[in-house]
């Protein structure tokens, strides 16, 4: 799995670097914010937290994840209906304050972060000029960074957008999409620039 992820990451980098040269179409950059769950709660609550390290460090309390994520994607138009590119996601940033029992001292650590790099293909659906529809699929890898990660540092990542839309002008436009995958399960909204 690590090898597959590494290959996909390489493909992502290649796509990002090479897209301007193999197509004559327009390029676009989209900046999204996501606001849905990025990881779901693990409900295997352990009662062993005071007598078992696994229960202490991997109980459900630390795994409720919800909050904003940031996605930046860069695309190159190949055909009228086909756009290829890559996306970069920062979809989890967690800080944790460690305090002593008496509450006198505390220190804050950046404990867990997830960044994902995914090459992607975007399909434009025929639609009116000022309200354009699309679908998107992306495969790549997520890198887990942080002091207290208990997972593999590199894992496979996928992101499927069954429907998204762009509205507004041709150069600057608003964009929103539904997304489902390992990166986010919810929606993104953002702003795009075409040049």
């Amino acid at each position: 799995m690590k090898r597959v992820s590494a290959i996909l990451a390489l493909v992502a980098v290649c796509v990002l670097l090479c897209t301007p040269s193999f197509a004559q179409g327009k390029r676009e950059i989209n900046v999204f914010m996501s606001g849905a769950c990025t990881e779901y709660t693990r409900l295997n609550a352990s009662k062993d937290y005071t007598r078992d390290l696994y229960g202490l460090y991997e109980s459900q309390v630390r795994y409720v994840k919800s909050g904003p994520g940031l996605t930046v994607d860069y695309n190159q138009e190949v055909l009228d209906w086909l756009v290829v590119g890559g996306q970069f996601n920062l979809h989890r940033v967690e800080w944790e304050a460690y305090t002593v029992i008496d509450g006198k001292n505390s220190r804050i650590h950046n404990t867990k972060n997830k960044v994902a790099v995914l090459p992607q293909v975007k399909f434009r659906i025929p639609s009116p000029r000022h309200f354009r529809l699309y679908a998107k699929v992306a495969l790549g890898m997520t890198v887990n960074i942080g002091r207290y990660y208990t997972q593999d540092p590199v894992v496979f990542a996928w992101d499927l957008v069954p429907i998204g839309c762009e509205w507004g002008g041709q150069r600057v436009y608003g964009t929103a999409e539904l997304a489902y995958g390992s990166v986010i399960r919810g929606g993104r909204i953002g702003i795009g620039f075409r040049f």
Partner: protein
Amino acid sequence: MKKTLYIFAAAVLALCSCSKGSDTVGGNNNYNNTAGGSYMMNIADNLIAGALEDLEIALEMGKTEITWASHFSGMTIIKDTGNTWKLSYEGPFAFDGVSYPTSFAMTVTRLNENKHADWDVIITGKRTEREGYSCQFESVGAITYRCTTPSNTGWNMLYGRLSMIVYNQYGKQDGCLLTFDGAPSQAIFMRGL
């Protein structure tokens, strides 16, 4: 274009306000702070105090190995110089009913002749648990176990520091320190070291 920007700004504000309910993104999770302290109290309270109890019984009986049903069946006791003994154990040990392979080496010095004597304890040990988790613990200097109750029922005052490093299959997971300065319930726990 203005309209687009307005909609985008409104959406960002809406997303930010929705995410304020999160307890982890930019938040403070005290769960592991208190629970981690409770875990380490098992070492101080059950493991070390259990070994001292076994030692006191063994000394009364003139034994050099714990061969009866006790906290640490099979623990060896070696008399060192003066009032000092060396204890070592390798085998299962339960924290509140959950048993895992545990090993330790302790050097203990008796400070008086009470029924439950006061002891200085120096310990290093290891515990191997499920899912690749393990911990190494040791005293930082000596931990003093003192009994001040009139009925002399047990050690109710502790002084000193106990450290613990937690590992999982990916390496070091956490560093913890429990500092005693009197009643164990007042111990100060710190993690993330």
